[in-house]
């Protein structure tokens, strides 16, 4: 056994070997390197308030973006439905980026196809690509529904999805009763969350209209009394498990509208299938009869929420990601209000246990200054959670925060939330900025912890701040998405992730005088 043990050095050891160091030095002749002094000066300058101002005045170029584009979100939405094949109408490259992006986060395959438009399509339109694509993909991947969205290329040349699909039916490429839901998702508008919303609304409205059903909210026809629940652009499969647990504790019936947890958490059984789990297509029209809809990402799900309240005439309770104790309390109240059911004792007991855990850890968190990056709904949840345990959000960057809900902008809500606690008094909320801005913030006004996606690791490293990985995408850590962050259990998970990072740092930076066994 020991013979087969790997003794392959990784880069860190490999490249600090003498021969590599030498090579590196040799190479400097080409680099026209700056002197050490110049490098030090430039670094110091990048930490200065003067450069920060320049950086924030930068309008044209985005440096290290923290958002993805609409079709990526749309693929995630499509994978929330049973046997549904996401189909991206446009040139092929985007689709392969989306697939790798999602796969690298979830460590799972992402079935999605593209119409592979080329320059002919740019001139003559993408109809024949779309029709051929439908024919090929249905034959190859045998879906029960195709969910079609566009890329910027199809948008710029103005392809009309609905008439193309009509033509495909006329040509007999797809039968009349084969469902093809669709939506427009130009990358130059919005971000991945906009795309998620467009596709979810696209699928719900399409399947509802096709069914010929008339919404009768509260009738519970054929389904009993039911609640609709939407999680939105949800990078945590664990959050689906947790929300199910909570709803089951209430003993209410419910339909998850969009559930990609099956596809992104399938077992290794020795046989791969293209589709796992997902909302049943037949359940979608019936969802129109539910008592009400609970949305857990109100900024993300704008269009879908409007569709449900206007067309299905249901009450919609829209929250941001329910993180922490207060966030989860709101969630339980909303469920209780929509269903008329009392809050179950088991959840109350869980609440007490998690509050206990928070009290255990609070001394290590109190007054810790944190920087936050993420999508709007996640950030609202995180800000709440941080302040709950006495951490102080300082820099908050939301690249795609230019969204509103019922005429309140994300920025306003975030600021109001921060103003509600003394722990929020240091905070500034930046909307539309990127991670190079965040780097300036981290360097000029240091914090203790950074919370955000893997993309933040570069800025965090420059600023020597530990990064707690929360959100999307997380490429460089394994299995984070399997642990819920919402609900009381989620609060506990977030807490242990954060407090143990703080303790690790304490030990790592310890001089030895208080290298304590018990903390």
């Amino acid at each position, binding site marked *: 056994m020991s013979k087969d043990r790997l003794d392959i050095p990784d880069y860190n050891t490999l490249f600090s070997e003498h021969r590599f160091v030498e090579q590196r030095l040799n190479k400097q002749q080409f680099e026209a390197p700056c002197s050490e002094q110049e490098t030090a000066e430039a670094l110091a300058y990048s930490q200065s308030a003067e450069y920060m101002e320049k950086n924030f005045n930068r309008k044209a170029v985005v440096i290290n*973006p923290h958002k993805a584009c609409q079709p990526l979100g749309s693929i995630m939405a499509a994978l929330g439905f049973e046997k549904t094949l996401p189909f991206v109408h446009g040139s092929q490259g985007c689709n392969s980026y989306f*697939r*790798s992006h999602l796969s690298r986060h979830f460590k799972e395959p992402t079935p999605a196809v593209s119409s592979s438009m080329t320059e002919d399509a740019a001139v003559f339109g993408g109809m024949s690509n779309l029709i051929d694509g439908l024919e090929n993909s249905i034959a190859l991947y045998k879906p029960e529904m195709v969910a079609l969205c566009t890329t910027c290329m199809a948008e710029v040349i103005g392809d009309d999805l609905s008439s193309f699909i009509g033509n495909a039916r006329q040509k007999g490429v797809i039968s009349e009763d084969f469902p093809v839901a669709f939506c427009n998702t130009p*990358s130059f508008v919005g971000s991945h969350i906009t795309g998620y919303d467009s596709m979810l609304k696209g699928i719900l409205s399409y399947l509802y209209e096709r069914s010929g059903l008339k919404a009768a909210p509260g009738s519970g026809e054929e389904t009993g009394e039911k609640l609709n629940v939407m999680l939105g652009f949800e990078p945590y499969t664990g959050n689906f498990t947790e929300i199910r647990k909570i709803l089951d504790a209430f003993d209410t019936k419910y339909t998850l509208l969009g559930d990609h947890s099956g596809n992104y958490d399938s*077992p290794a059984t020795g046989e791969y299938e293209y589709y796992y789990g997902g909302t049943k297509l037949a359940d979608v029209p019936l969802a129109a009869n539910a008592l009400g809809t609970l949305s857990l990402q109100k900024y993300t799900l704008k269009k879908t929420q409007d569709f449900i309240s206007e067309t299905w005439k249901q009450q919609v309770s829209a929250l941001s990601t329910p993180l922490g104790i207060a966030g989860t309390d709101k969630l339980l109240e909303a469920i209780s209000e929509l269903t008329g059911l009392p809050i179950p004792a088991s959840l109350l007991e869980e609440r007490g246990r998690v509050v206990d855990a928070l009290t255990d850890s609070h001394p290590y968190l109190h007054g810790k200054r944190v920087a936050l990056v993420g999508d709007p709904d996640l950030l609202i949840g995180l800000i709440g959670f941080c302040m709950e345990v006495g951490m102080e959000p300082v820099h908050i960057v939301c690249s795609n925060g230019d969204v509103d809900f019922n005429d309140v902008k994300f920025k306003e809500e975030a600021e109001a939330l921060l103003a509600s606690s003394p722990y929020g008094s240091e905070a500034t909320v930046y909307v539309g900025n990127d991670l190079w801005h965040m780097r300036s913030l981290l360097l000029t006004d240091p914090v203790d912890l950074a919370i955000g996606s893997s993309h933040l690791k570069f800025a965090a490293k420059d600023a020597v701040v530990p990064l707690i990985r929360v959100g999307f995408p997380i490429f460089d850590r394994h299995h984070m998405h399997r642990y819920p962050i919402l609900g009381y259990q989620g609060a506990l998970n977030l807490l242990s992730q954060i407090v143990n990072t703080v303790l690790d740092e304490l030990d790592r930076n310890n001089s030895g005088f208080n290298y304590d066994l018990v903390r």
Partner: protein
Amino acid sequence: MDPIRKDEFDSEACGSKAPKSKPCPRPKPGEAAGGCSFDGAQITLLPIMDAAHLVHGPIACAGNSWESRGTLSSGPSLSQYGFATDLNDSDIIFGGEKKLKESIDYIAGRFAPPAIFVYSTCVTALIGEDMDAVCKEAGDRLGIPVIPVNSPGFVGSKNLGNRLAGDALLQYVIGTGEPEPELPPGVNLIGEYNIAGEMWDIEKLMNSAGIAVTSRITGDARYKEITWAHRAKVNMVVCSRALLGLAKEMESRYGIPYFEGSFYGAKETTYSLRQMAYLMNDRDMERRVDRLTEREESRLIQDLRPYRKILKGKKAVLYTGGVKSWSVISALKELGVQVVGVGTNKSTEDDVRRIADRVGDDTEYIPEGGATRILKTVRERKADIMIAGGRNMYVAMKEQIPFIDINQERHKAYAGYEGLLRLAKELTYSLANPIWKLAASPAPWDKEVPYDR
């Protein structure tokens, strides 16, 4: 920008002989295809580490791709920054040229790079941005090269993008500088991207044989060294068909002979080093190469012994792009691993011929993708391991198939003699991990249920 002439590319693209059919196969609509030309162009140019790389387009192209490739740098890291103009709807209507110009100015002012590469994308090509003009104007004004890379995604495959990037180098970079006087005449490595540091292993070998590298095109390159590539004595096209055009053009423009080679496997490595020395026309160097390769090969045989014992007779399915399909086969053969299935979806006819030279008759060719197709081959041929790229990795895991990542995100360097040893270790490791036994056996209470695989 000039209209993209598809016919022209198709007719002279990838092969060394005039290809009969389409050399860069086009993706079929409705399939899960690989990357676009934009992606291909970036793969070729991003390893120029000290340059800035600016993506002109909506957020998609850059937002989904920055800093996710395994090409390593021994120094500067500007190339790892994700620069994008992030066009929005009003830019699409009114044009993004102003934004582009401002972006270039900002990058030049703040980061002072030796050069800026500007990439067109589907959108900017479609709305007819005059990127060439903006780049030229900015370059003249700022006094640094600002190089347009016209390779929007929709023109075709990744391979075509590699090629278009090569064209940009020919047009704007190569021949614009002169080497440092003390640099001895040497070899250009074309199409070696320093994934996981492979370039460094190669360079070490060349150094020990006294062969100098003139320009790295482009693994761990500095902008400046590419400007003097035309002074090299030999071009080696390393595992990248798509850049063959670059080598050919340099042959006709500058009279530099080229050869195609690979560093996967000991035989290929030896051949490549010999070829270099031979084309350098230097007897001494040839003798040094002979001594080096003999020594390294015999050492390798020693080192490989324990692994070969385990690997002998193992079967692999190889699913990877283009040239790697044949060059990796050689490496696997040396380890005693039998390739029972090989992907040919991105291979040219030349590649397929070379594959055929290297595998037996009963090897299955997998012409196009789709996980099912690959998996079917693995199962039918009773393969022990799958060697492919990251997007297929998780499918393999579902099917409980041992897996090795061979594509651009890989974290291990497999080139040269040491690389082969690493590959051997990695294969053994992947095959021997106890998880496969656990994964393949049913839960104890289900033991009597027959379970194959």
